[in-house]
């Protein structure tokens, strides 16, 4: 790769590293491990920038999701389960600026806070703890079908809040 690309990577790092790091830190709760995930996410972007499809979704959202996936792999001590090329998002906000992100984060937290608590915890257990629906069901003692419905309803509530 040419030196110009390294400069571009540094610019992208300056713009998005805090998002990538914050996601990994929330999931792993350990600064060293979160730093490893941060390093891996940007190295993957550098090695394979074409994996990001600019026509679908924003780079900030894509990097945040890649960071979440790698942090969960790390947490569960497993090899990466998805190729970065396989992560395709529909258009989601970019939120490169700290002020925009703080506002959006506040809005998401507001939406999560207004959700029924069982719905919120099912969503968070799946997304931030990487638990499968059967693991959530056995942890909460609820039927599988209920867990499925809660996770979908939670995501739909978030979608609606950002559509208006």
């Amino acid at each position, binding site marked *: 790769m040419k030196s110009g690309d390294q400069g571009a990577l540094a610019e992208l790092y300056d713009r998005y590293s805090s998002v990538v790091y914050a996601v990994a830190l929330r999931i792993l709760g350990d600064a060293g491990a979160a730093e490893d995930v941060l390093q891996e996410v940007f190295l*993957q972007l550098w090695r394979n920038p074409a994996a990001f499809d600019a*026509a679908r979704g924003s780079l900030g959202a894509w990097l945040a999701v890649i960071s979440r996936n790698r942090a969960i792999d790390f947490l569960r001590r497993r090899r990466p389960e998805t190729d970065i090329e396989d992560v395709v998002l*529909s258009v989601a906000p970019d939120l490169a600026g700290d002020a925009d992100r703080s506002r959006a984060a506040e809005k998401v937290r507001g939406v999560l806070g207004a959700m029924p608590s069982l719905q919120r915890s099912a969503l968070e257990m799946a997304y931030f703890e990487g638990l499968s629906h059967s693991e959530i069901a056995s942890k909460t003692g609820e039927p599988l079908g209920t867990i499925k419905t809660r996770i979908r309803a939670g995501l739909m509530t978030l979608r609606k809040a950002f559509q208006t």
Partner: protein
Amino acid sequence: MSGHEQFADDLALYAVDALEGQERSNLEQHLATCAACKRELEQLRGDTALLALSTLGPKPPQRARKRLLDAVASEASRISPVPLRAAPKDESRSRSWWGWLGWAATAAVIVFAVSLGKENYELKQDLRMASSILSQRTADLEQARSVANALTNPEGQHFTLVAMKTPPQPQGKAIYVRNRSSLIFLANNMPSLPSQKMYELWLIPMQGAPVPAGLFKPDAHGSATVINPPLPAGLEAKAFAITVENEAGASTPTMPIMMMGAGE
């Protein structure tokens, strides 16, 4: 996704990687042939991105940036970097050429290696966590000392910054690698646009008409990114320019040109 309601809940679980077993295989089989469900999955992943983007925390330590750039520089000096790939989901077919006896011996070696590797990995994890806590504490102490010193130092110069009268100017930076057709474009302070309009980036070649190089809309902060839009191979760029176009984009630029810059 009408007519596919039976997959609705499973798609949401799949988007957060919480679906497993037979249900996962059934859904993957369906996704291979159903464009509507695939679109819904992408939309759901976009929804999950909101959860990821909502996390806030401290900025990464300064040393992380240097570590990344050092790693990139060292990889750049090697011949050809090999992209990291995820583990193949099903390796059983590729193993079929192993003889039975060879397989049993190999399996025994793998089991032994995995158990050693796991133990080694766990020990390394513990060690790394301890040293990470120690270095964090040291960094915190150093930071506190440096703040106290700056506040109390009699030689410290003080500056008060106030808002500039003129609004910040729009700025775009394009980095283009011709032989790879790779383009990274970052923009700041871009004025917002009406809902039906988009900015369009144009590559102005040495000869011939401008070539569309991506549509973008700035976020509320005025920032935008265009990464690797589809471009004809090997085109030499004289300059890049930006116009305002309808949402679907245009094949020739609509005047006036809003911003333009030649290669440095």
